[in-house]
């Protein structure tokens, strides 16, 4: 996956780097669907990590984004991005997992100096650090090794390079049975409020309703439905500005 700068007049579309790699072809189909339905030229840029995504946001190269809540908070509040839609089902949750043979059986068993493996997903880190608070642990008490993806996080656990792994629950649940059978969930968040959101840049505010309509009818068309299926979403749901603001308030409450 190599990010490139789309030519002038082409809209830049991207997806939060925590997407399931198996959904990569599906996002290209979604991109094609959006192009055809909106009549605009859209280039999908997939980023390998959050650092690259945040760099693109800083350079104002992101016109459409399916963002996780952490990034959505910044994009909506600080950059004026407009919410278009959210997935009908599923919220962003975190899982803290250990090797199946680990001596840790509850969060309270964790001690300062615990070794954690994680990706650079700030949303997962935020949720995971909240999950370990009952053990009286803060960020400084955890030795975090950043891994390129969730499979590498799992491997770090299996190779005894980490005591705990921080995962987005959806990616943990997608680990192969061979790998997941060697791991054990220490704790799983049940927040039920935090979700990915489809956003559009404020300079495209005039097109917001067009993109909303495109997304809302996606599940009524065979090709659209197939594209949704390829990215693991059953259908899009309208999302009000206030609903996103509520989620952002919650994220801020947890961050401060």
């Amino acid at each position: 996956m190599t990010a490139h700068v789309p030519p002038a007049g082409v809209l830049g579309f991207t997806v939060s780097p925590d997407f399931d790699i198996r959904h990569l072809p599906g996002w290209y189909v979604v991109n094609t669907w959006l192009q055809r339905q909106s009549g605009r030229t859209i280039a999908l840029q997939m980023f390998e990590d959050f650092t690259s995504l945040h760099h693109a946001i800083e350079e104002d190269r992101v016109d459409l984004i399916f963002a996780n809540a952490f990034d959505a908070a910044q994009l909506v509040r600080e950059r004026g991005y407009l919410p278009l839609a959210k997935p009908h089902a599923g919220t962003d949750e975190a899982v803290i997992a250990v090797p199946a043979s680990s001596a840790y059986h509850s969060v309270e068993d964790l001690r300062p100096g615990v070794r954690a493996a994680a990706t650079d997903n700030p949303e997962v880190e935020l949720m995971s650090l909240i999950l370990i608070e009952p053990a009286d642990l803060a960020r400084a008490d955890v030795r975090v090794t950043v891994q390129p993806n969730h499979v590498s996080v799992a491997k770090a656990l299996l190779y005894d390079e980490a005591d705990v792994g921080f995962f987005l629950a959806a990616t943990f649940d997608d680990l192969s049975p061979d790998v997941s059978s060697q791991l054990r969930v220490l704790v799983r968040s049940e927040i039920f409020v935090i979700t990915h959101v489809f956003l559009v840049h404020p300079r495209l505010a005039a097109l917001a309703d067009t993109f909303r309509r495109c997304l809302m009818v996606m599940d009524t068309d065979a090709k659209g439905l197939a594209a949704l299926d390829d990215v693991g979403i059953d259908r899009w749901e309208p999302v009000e500005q206030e609903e996103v603001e509520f989620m952002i308030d919650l994220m801020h409450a947890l961050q401060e």
Partner: protein
Amino acid sequence: MRDMTLDDLCGSPSGEHVLTYADGISRRVYTVDHEVPFPDGRLIVSRTDLRGVITRANDSFVAMSGWSMPELIGEPHSIMRHPDMPSVVFRDLWHTVGRGHTWHGHVKNLRKDGAYYWVYASIVPNVRHGEMVGFTSVRRKASRRTVAEAAARYAALR
């Protein structure tokens, strides 16, 4: 906000109190010396208007408070106030959020059945178009060490 009755309780009452809130309203409450553990992984989330009246609550709030959703919506957040909580803590809370800042702190909450649960609470002002319109409160599980420290601190303040 109705008075608690002995029929509400999950066990023998350990105390009876008449609480008077900042708005002058009084309420009789009973306490039961039983702590309900905060479940792992959960967050209690609610929103209030500027007067502290609950406008939105999540399922974890319902489960931990013992009140049903219809019972919670429209009630002041102080319905959860435990008599062991010093009023100065809530004065600090309102003073902080009223100035547009986030308040953090440990809170011992009273359940509908008289039992209690400890949380670490974060309360953020909801600002829309430059105007404060309400507050979002997020409560999470706290460590036993910090709960014990807060309990001792609050006991000294009462």
